[in-house]
């Protein structure tokens, strides 16, 4: 058993080292080609516009490297901290089953007929002695309610309530569930999500600290069936294992994901629940909690398995909504951007969100257009390649780190190259247009994603 475990570690570390070594070697090799044609790059500095863009892109690259380095550093520190806690040297209040507080699981569901039953059955199998399930059917036009009722009747030992109401959106459904919840803690999730059995025990430990108002869970992709969904699987692993873990070290997780977030009910009530004026109600609520001074942590062991879009059009729809939703949420708290002394770390969180949501996609696209132009106009395609390679090295290092930390499939590292080669350009176009649409105030609809029933 021990030998197999060591073998798995060696396999994972081996692939990670090989991938990082490969791209770094390519970077070093290609540097010679860049150095050889160094004289021809001077053409970029002879034109004011080209020179300005060149310096801006260099500045952006430096910011990116700083971002990656800081995220990896802080996420590793958080990892060490969680290992220390897991070793049992920390005091644990919720140790005995009898001392575990009641948790209400709220499952908002709108036309989730295909996935609601497996999702609910995963909840019935949770390893926790004191919880209830509240399914809020948000005026579905399919058989969500009937299917939820079938599972509710099967349930023994866990109280399951299914409530149906007029359609009012996810925020409204979650608020309804919250008002009916009997637990001291509330776990909000999506109707298409499957939870790992240890979710509640893993999350509840964080609330031993009275300053912690909420805990964000770990979201993983269940339908890894084609290149698009595998790249998204890597994206989720990187976003959580690196960014959210790093934020968790500072207790300032900036988005509690919709598929899995646990809250103190009193904190949710204090914040007035979810607002309906954004398309990213989870991000908006998280910012509200952070602005009120609550600590928000991340729990990697609490896993929510979700189905991600397997078609490009659905993916663009999702990312378009996320981008605009995050911008709406950020704009609601924009006064904090200019108050670094008063707002403290919250000010930096908002700037970081703007960097990721606006500056990054714009700069990526600008870089690509610029280097394609330079490549075609001056025959300096090597420069485009070198730019691409530097970003790919960052992606591969991040992917290798996350695969090792999260004990994920090593094959995901390969998709870091696919991510940079195909995926991110397409997504960035959508993000840039979403930002422009939001800035111009174009109307938009929620847009329900089609489920394929892969849970």
């Amino acid at each position, binding site marked *: 058993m021990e030998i197999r475990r060591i073998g798995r570690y060696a396999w994972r570390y081996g692939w990670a080292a090989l991938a990082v070594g490969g791209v770094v070697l390519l970077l070093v090799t290609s540097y010679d080609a860049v150095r050889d044609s160094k004289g021809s790059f001077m053409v970029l500095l002879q034109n004011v516009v080209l020179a300005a863009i060149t310096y801006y892109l260099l500045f952006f690259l430096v910011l990116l490297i700083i971002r990656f380095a800081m995220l990896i550093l802080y996420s590793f520190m958080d990892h060490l901290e969680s290992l220390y806690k897991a070793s049992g040297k920390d005091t644990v209040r919720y140790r005995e089953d009898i001392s575990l507080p009641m948790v209400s699981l709220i499952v908002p569901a709108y036309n989730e007929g295909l996935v609601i039953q497996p999702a609910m059955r995963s909840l019935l199998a949770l390893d926790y002695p004191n919880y209830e399930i509240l399914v809020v059917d948000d005026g579905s036009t399919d058989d969500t309610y009937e299917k939820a009722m079938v599972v509710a009747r099967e349930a023994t030992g866990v109280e399951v309530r299914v409530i149906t109401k007029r359609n009012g959106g996810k925020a409204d459904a979650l608020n309804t569930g919250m008002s009916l919840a009997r637990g001291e803690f509330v776990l909000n999730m999506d109707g298409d999500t499957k939870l790992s059995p240890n979710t509640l025990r893993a999350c509840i430990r964080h609330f031993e600290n009275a300053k912690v108002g909420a805990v964000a869970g770990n979201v993983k992709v269940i339908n890894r069936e084609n290149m698009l969904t595998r790249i998204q699987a890597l994206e989720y692993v990187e976003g959580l294992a690196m960014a959210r873990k790093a934020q968790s070290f500072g207790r300032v997780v900036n988005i509690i994901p919709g598929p899995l977030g646990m809250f103190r009910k009193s904190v949710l009530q204090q914040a007035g629940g979810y607002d309906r004026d954004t398309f990213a109600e989870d991000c908006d609520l998280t910012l509200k909690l952070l602005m009120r001074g609550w600590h928000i942590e991340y729990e990697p062991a609490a896993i929510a398995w979700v189905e991600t879009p397997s078609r490009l059009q659905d993916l663009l729809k999702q990312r378009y909504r996320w981008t605009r939703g995050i911008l709406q949420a950020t704009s609601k708290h924009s006064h904090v951007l200019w108050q670094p002394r008063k707002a403290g770390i919250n000010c930096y969180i908002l700037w970081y969100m703007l960097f990721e949501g606006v500056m990054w996609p714009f700069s990526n696209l600008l870089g*690509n257009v610029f280097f394609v132009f330079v490549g075609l106009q001056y025959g300096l395609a*090597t420069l485009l*390649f070198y730019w691409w390679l530097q970003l790919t090295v960052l992606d591969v290092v991040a992917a290798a780190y996350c695969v090792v930390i999260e004990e994920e499939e090593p094959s995901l590292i390969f998709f870091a190259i696919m991510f940079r080669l195909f995926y991110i350009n*397409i997504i960035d*176009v959508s993000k840039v247009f979403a930002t422009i649409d939001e800035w111009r105030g174009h109307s938009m609809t929620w847009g329900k994603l089609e489920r394929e029933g892969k849970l």
Partner: protein
Amino acid sequence: MDLISILATVILITTVGTMVVGLGAYGAFKLRDKRKPSSGRSDETMNAGDPLEPVFLTRYVPGSTAEPEPEPASHER
């Protein structure tokens, strides 16, 4: 042509290609998102004067509406 030049050409083509795909996919997404059934506009092919009767919802009753089958034409002189 050395390896770096080949890779540079591949990246150039891929970058241009993915940006074009990105623009095309976004355009298709917006078109699809905008398209929805309009409730106000009536069907121009419909004669407003005619009584509105469901065409496909009339219950079919065997025998009551069936017309007698035509007899085969005789080719005898």
